[in-house]
């Protein structure tokens, strides 16, 4: 699949999850200083630790933004504790985008936020 296949471009142009959440139970930011990808992740979890709502805000390259959207799709309905255990390799597989080593940092920024 082409790195800039329709899905990535669509997600970059019309990101479904790009918005703030009011009164999030989890809010964290991080960035790739070397290139300027910045993301803030918002989560609302219920009493059992299940993610009921998730969103992000930020700027950066198409890969960082698209992967944020794909990731958020995956985590809604899951337990935060389980998500924190996801390994980087599993995450890359989940994205189904052919990421070169040079772009890994872009793709995994959103994962970094939830794991740290």
């Amino acid at each position, binding site marked *: 699949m082409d790195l*800039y296949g329709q899905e990535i471009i669509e997600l*970059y142009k019309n990101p479904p999850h790009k918005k703030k959440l009011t009164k999030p139970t989890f809010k964290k930011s991080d960035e790739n200083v070397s*290139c300027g990808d910045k993301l803030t992740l918002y989560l609302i979890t219920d009493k059992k630790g299940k993610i009921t709502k998730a969103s992000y805000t930020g700027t*950066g*390259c*198409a*890969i960082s933004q698209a992967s944020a959207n794909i990731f958020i799709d995956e985590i809604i309905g899951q337990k935060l504790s389980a998500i924190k255990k996801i390994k980087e390799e599993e995450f890359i597989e989940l994205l189904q985008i052919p990421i070169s080593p040079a772009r890994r940092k872009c793709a995994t920024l959103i994962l970094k936020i939830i794991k740290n």
Partner: protein
Amino acid sequence: MVDLGFVRKDFPILKKRVNGKRLVYLDNAASSQKPVVVIESIKSFYENKYSNIHRGLHELSQEASEEYEESRKYIAKFFNAKTEELVFTKNATESMNLIAYSMLSQLKKGDEIIISQMEHHANIVPWHLISNIKKIKIKSIPFNQETGLIEPQTLKKNLTKKTKLVSLTHASNVLGSINPIKELSKTVKKYNSKIIFGSDLAQSAPHLKIDFKKLGIDFGVFSSHKMLGPSGVGGLIGKTEFLNELAPFMGGGDMIKSVSHKKITYQKPPYKFEAGTPNIEGVIGLKAAIVYLNRIGMKQIREHELGLLKTLMNEIKDLDYLEYYGPKKIKQRTGLLSFNLKNIHAHDVSEILNQQGIATRSGHHCAQLLHEHLKIDASARASFYLYNTKEEVIKLVEGIKKTKEVFS
């Protein structure tokens, strides 16, 4: 108009295909490709003359030493410097670190060092490292954002009684600006002739004829790999008076005159600064690179690159979604362009260009402070050299247009 298309056959790597497309190598500001003569010179040295230098009485050692020192003489002449004014290092960055650390013994708390807001990290970090050791003040002077140049008046305003050293880039690796180093040096020396004035020549030496004497600088640094030579070799050109006062940097063999338990005496420059076995074959390779550059002619190379820039500027003038940085006047630039496309991140631009076989760079290009001043996160950069062609410039612009399409 100068066309150097005939040089391409001298560079084997340019025949390569990338992602099924002909390689269009536009990342020369990062590093340059090597001509056959450079490759052959190193191979030949290994096959016929290799031995350690300055150390032996045997035949090979003498031949190797002779060739190494002949290379020094030839390379120094290329820069119009005296042979003993050329110190070989690993690269321009190491040369800068050498000066910074070696200057420490001459500096005291409260002294000031001036750099600029457009510098590469190699001309920022070493000064900061030593400023922590002796509480030296580092002043970073602004450049004219309209023209992309450092102005003598701005420098003059920042000189004080405490200024001990000024280090400014000759050509910017992001803006492409060619700074008026001669005038800047005059400004400093007129204020106080004792202030050391040096320049980072890493981006200018490969593309412009450098006359060390005429520039009026106390030191200049350059890297071999950016000027068709092998990596792992660089130079520090320094006036003899300046090098004589400088403390040694690395200690070890070759840089000492005598070692006893009580006392160590050091060699004169340049040997004072060349401890241990150097990159012997690298220096041989660099000499071959400079022989090649001399054959083509630095003036021809400059004209050729100006032609490429002219084509590029013409092709992009109607692209309202493209923003570039640095001087608008072509003659004030080296052959590179850093740019951004509206609403598209620099990394994505380089990625899509890469898919078409076009090699560019994106990020902050080791100049984070500069990007902060330009108020951008990152930029994409295309940089030319003597083997790039007008066709490749057009391919670059087509690639830029395609990138815009992908994101529409």
